[in-house]
Structures are given as C-alpha cells and as structure tokens.
C-alpha cells in the first residue's frame, strides 16, 4: 500500500491530511504488518479524518461502522430482512417448506451491515469502526472475533472469509477503557494536540484566506489555552472554527476585543471562558 513512511505523509498530504511523524509511521506499519489500528485521543484531533484520508489515498472504499450506546450485532454485522421474508412466505409458490426456507435464508434476504460488508468485499476496503468507546462492552467480543480471523459465520449461509483483508481503523475518545484483549489485537496510536508548527500548517491548509501572521497568533493563543487547567481544552477542530470565524469577521490581527468576543468558539463551558479571560488578561467578559 505504501513504500515508506515518507510516502504515507506525502500522499496523505495530497488529500488534505497533514500527518505527524507518529501518525505516518503507525499508518505505514499497520499496512505493512496487516494489523488493525486503534487511534485514541481527544475529540477533534483528526481521528475520523485520518481513516477517510487513508481510504482516499489507497483508492479504497470506506466502510464505516459508527458506534453508539446500544449498537448491536444486527446493526454491526448483518440482519435478515424479516418483512421481505414474510412477503415471500405468504406469496407461496406451491413448493415445500424446506424449499421456502432455503430460499428465504438466501443472499436475497440478507441485509449486510458494515462488518460483513467490509469482509465480503473483493475491492480494497478501509473499515472504520468509529467511536468504539461508545459501544457497550458486549460489542467488543464481536469486534474481537471479526478482527481475529476476518471471518464471519452466518448460520444459515455458512462462513464468509475475507478474500482481501480490509485496512481497519478503530477510533476512541477514551470515554471508556477498551478491553485489553481488543487493544492487544491492534497497533496503538495516540493522537494528541499537534505541535505548533503542524497546527499552523493545518490552519493554513483548511482556512486558506487567513493571513499567515494571524494564523501564527491563533495557534499560539490556542497553545496557551491548552496549558491552562480547563474543563475542556480546545482541539484542532476548534482552532479551525476559530480561524474561520476570524476570517469571516474580517479581523486581520488579534486584539483584546476580538479575542474576548470570539472566545466562545474555542471554549464550550462558561467557567472555562471566564478563567481563560482572566489568565489572558482580558477585561471583563
């Protein structure tokens, strides 16, 4: 998939994803060792975006399983289309029950969900299991099974084995500790807040109209906020939002008024806003 770590960085950059050395190295290894990649880190640091970018550079289709509380096998793996089966049964074609049964448990009545879809494909695939920490613990057993053998058994149809293993990316905001067994199946990548230089490049790329000096100031202020003891630190997503806001306001430099008026774009909690304003020496907010 990739010839070197530099190759990973260069090609991801072409799609608009700027990878840190850690990100590029780990993606390269995951492809080389054929192991799933578990990406953990705060919200808004580009975890989901990374999986999309990898799919794009690999010319692979992206299959996404979005996890949430209560996601189950029927949503993740496959489900029988009961309504359609019932119709077929009541339409009766005068054959025996055995024949009907064989028919209604055939491909035509199967609703494949992301995990099965990703395993069955012939074409190159990136399987994104997004926000794994939101799923219940029970879900991890299923994931572990699928990620161990890359095969799935549908009792009525038999076992489906991947002819071509998908490149798997699991993401987690660490809302819940994932089980050790699942972690051990994966290469581990922590994406934290980027270095100043990288974040400046991201801002310049995503908000092209923004003045270079202003971009530098934006990133420095965000860096200062992250060093504070706040309830929720601003992420890359917030940096980009803030930069866009400043551009829309036509601000060409930062000053006290602009920062005070737009701090809410960066900080979501009122007590964080107050605290940051005090530490940045902004007059009453």
């Amino acid at each position, binding site marked *: 998939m990739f010839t070197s770590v530099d190759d990973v960085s260069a090609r991801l950059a072409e799609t608009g994803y700027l990878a840190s050395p850690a990100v590029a*190295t780990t993606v*390269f*290894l995951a492809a080389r060792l054929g192991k799933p990649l578990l990406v953990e880190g705060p919200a808004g640091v580009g975890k989901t975006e990374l999986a999309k970018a990898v799919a794009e550079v690999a010319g692979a289709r992206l299959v996404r399983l979005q996890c949430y509380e209560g996601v189950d096998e029927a949503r993740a793996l496959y489900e029988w289309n009961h309504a359609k089966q019932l119709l077929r049964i009541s339409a009766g074609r005068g054959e025996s029950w055995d024949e009907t049964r064989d028919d209604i448990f055939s491909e035509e009545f199967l609703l494949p969900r992301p995990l099965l879809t990703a395993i069955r494909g012939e074409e190159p695939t990136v399987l994104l299991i997004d926000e794994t920490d939101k799923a219940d613990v029970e879900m991890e057993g299923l994931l572990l099974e699928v990620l161990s053998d890359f095969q799935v058994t549908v009792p009525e149809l038999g076992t489906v084995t991947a002819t071509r293993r998908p490149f798997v990316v699991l993401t987690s905001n660490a809302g819940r500790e994932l089980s050790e067994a699942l972690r051990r199946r994966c*290469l*581990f990548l922590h994406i934290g807040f980027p270095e100043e230089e990288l974040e400046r490049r991201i801002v310049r790329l995503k908000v092209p109209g923004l003045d270079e000096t202003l971009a530098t100031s934006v990133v420095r202020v965000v860096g200062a906020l992250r060093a504070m*003891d706040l309830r929720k630190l601003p992420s890359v997503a917030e940096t980009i939002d803030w930069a866009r806001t400043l551009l829309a306001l036509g601000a060409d430099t*930062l000053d006290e008024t602009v920062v005070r008026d737009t701090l809410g774009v960066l900080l979501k909690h009122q*007590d964080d806003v107050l605290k940051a304003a005090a530490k940045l020496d902004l007059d009453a907010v």
Partner: protein
Amino acid sequence: MTAGSDVAARLAGFVAALRAHGVRVGTAETVDAARAVEALGLADRALLREGLAATLLHTTGQRQLFDAVFDLYFPRAVGAPDGEPAGREELRDRLAAALAANDTAVLGRLAVEAVDALGGYGSSPGSGGWSSYQTLERLRPQTLLAQVRDDMRARGGGAGFAGRLLEEEIRRRIEEFRGQVAAEARRRVAERRGRDEIARRAVATTADRVDFLYAGKDRLAELRRTVQPLARKLATRLAARRRRAARGTIDLRRTLRGSLSTGGVPVRPVLRRRRPARPELVLLCDVSGSVAGFSDFTMLLVQALHDQFSKVRVFAFVNRIDEVTGLLTHGVADAEGLSGRIRAEARLTGWHGSSDYGVALGEFAERYGAAVGPRTTVFVLGDARTNMADPNLPALKRIAAQARRVYWLNPEPRAQWGTGDSAAPEYAGLVEMHECRTARQLGALVGRLLPV
C-alpha cells in the same frame, strides 16, 4: 556478533525494562516490534521510537515511561560529544539564543553539551557520574527568562496580542530543555553503570504507581490530570456492578403474567428491576502536610464521581473538622488551588498545626453526626498518625454504628502501621482499613468499595 542479533538483544533488554516498570508486553507484541524494526530500519530514531510505541504500548499513560526507557536503549549517541566542553557563560548565551529561536534541534544539542561540561562529578568509574541536578544548578536556565523575553521583544516578537503569551511560552521551552538535560544525564550514567540498572532505578515510573506520600509537586499535578479519565473508568465499573446488583431477583408476578401466552408455563423468568435510591457518601479527610496529596486526589476523584451518588459530603480536618463540600463543587475547575483554598477558608486547626485524629473524629461525631445514616458509606482518609494524642476510639465506633459501612484508606505502607505514633492497628480493629499508597491502588479500591 551480527548486527541482527545485536538489535534483537537490544530489543529484548528494552522490553524487559518496560516489563519491570509494569508495562505488560506479551510475546506477540515483541514479535510485532521486531517486524516494525525490520520495516522501519534503525537510521531514523524518531520513526523507530514511534514504531516501537505503536507495537508495544496499548494505552496513553505509559508513553512517558516508554520514552525515558527508549532513550536508554536506543540512545541518540554514544559517549561524550565531540570537541572541547564549552564554558558556562558560552552555554548560557547559546541557550538564550536557541530559546528565543525555539530551535529544538539546537536545544537538544545544548543539553548534551551542558551535561558534559557541567554535570560530571567524581572521577573513578565506580563512584563518579553525571547529574542533571548539578547541570541545571550551574546553568540555571530559568534565570534566562527575562533576557530571552526582552531579546524577543526587541526584535518584534512580542508585538500584538500574542505578545502577552511570550513569557509563558519561554517558560514551557525551558521546562522542555530541563527534561532533555535529565534524559541526557541518564544516558551518560547508563553508559557508565549499565543501562539495565539505570532503566530500573533512574526512570520514574508511571504517575499512578508513585506513592502519594513521596510524590512531588509535578507528579501530583500529573495525577490531577488523570482524575477525569479515572473517574470515567470507575463510572463504567460502578454501572456494571449496579446492573449486576439489580439483576438476580425474579419478579414472580410479572413472570406469571408473561407465561399466559405459553399456556401458563413460566418459560421466561422476568427479573425484577430494582431502582434503589443511590447511596450516600461521606468523606473525612486528613489534609495535613504529607498526606494532603493523597486526600486532595481522592476528594477530586470522588467529586468527579458525584453523580453516582444521591449525596456526597466532604469534611476536612487537621485537628479540627469543617465541611468543605461547597469548596469542592466549585473547586474542580481549579484543582490546583483546591488545597490552598480548603486550608484558607475552612477552620481546620485549633491550638497547634499538627493533626489530631481523636479530636477531629470526636468533633465530627458531635457536630455532624446527622450526616451519617443507614444509607451512608463513610471513607476516612489519612495515615492515622495522631501525634501521640488520644485516638478517641469511641468516636469512630459511634460513627461506624450509625453508618452502613466505614472504610479507612491509609496511604502508608502496611508495614509502617502501628510504628511510632500510628494508631492504625487500633482503628483497623474497628473499621475495615486498606493500604492505599498509589493512584492505581486507589482506583482499584474505589471501584470495589464504593457502594452502588
């Protein structure tokens, strides 16, 4: 020895050192790590570091430890830097310039040179060594702050709004440089005394395994940042325990009603869903001197878990007791200042400044007895060192009789209970006392003992 087997041996030593610090690395991971080395090569040390981290680690908390051990087993260089060691003044000048330019490569090289020039002590191989403390004491990088700031201002770096961030930014760069000096000193010492030993002894272990009683300011700050993640983890565990506790009893009426469709045969037992009132929690915390770090951390943790309980009340004492629940609810956003505020705003001391468990427990039983009822679980936090005063066992007995449960968490090693002025064995005779030396132990205990 061939290059291949040298690398294999190096990797094996590295993995062993990680294991010695409690990182669980299995055989499969070691094999993956070897494949990573093969795929990445040894030429680029930064890539190698990331590759090994990706294959050997599974959580974020281990990274700092990993980096320190990596620096010993895959050092940036061997031996002393080339050339004559520079003098102190020259080093300071170059350091100031590099800090102003924020040139990380130069800062790294300066750390190497500084340890070489200023950090050596002793002369015989057995007794001498390299000290980061000595290096930093002589170099005093923190005193460059004003100079670097003024220099940057003079060159226009301080202009505009972001100018007010300058000082803080320089401070962070200096902090980073200090870390580089520490790493370099470890590398030099390891060359002299063997890296296996230094990896075991000189690399600080992960914060959650450091004794509360010996944790320094930085470590405590590091620990405070783990409160929220730990609380989330514990909340998951409590929810699971609550689910288990709620299962189990069969609701006969609903089972029979359900069985009507099966001709009265009860095939599906219906489990009773209990919605018991959430339990109440009372914390009694010794916040004096050395145990303060432990108490602060525990208070913050419990506060972060407060929505798991119908009521949480927190009392702090040294030799008088006062309720600090209010300070705590507002204090989470500013965890760092918490202990300061508690000591400033609550009445915790009377005649003298040392802790007195007997008086504090007695005063609690007197004044706040009503806070404890049959749904209340009480946690006492402290080392049970009474400074030779009367431990007032009847007061604790009274509290225990009123409460649902009383647990005592003691940050001292069990072996020290009862030595000197410790009344731990006496108190442990009345209520369940647990050794709770580290954040890791605390997490395990809290996950197990908290009522659901």
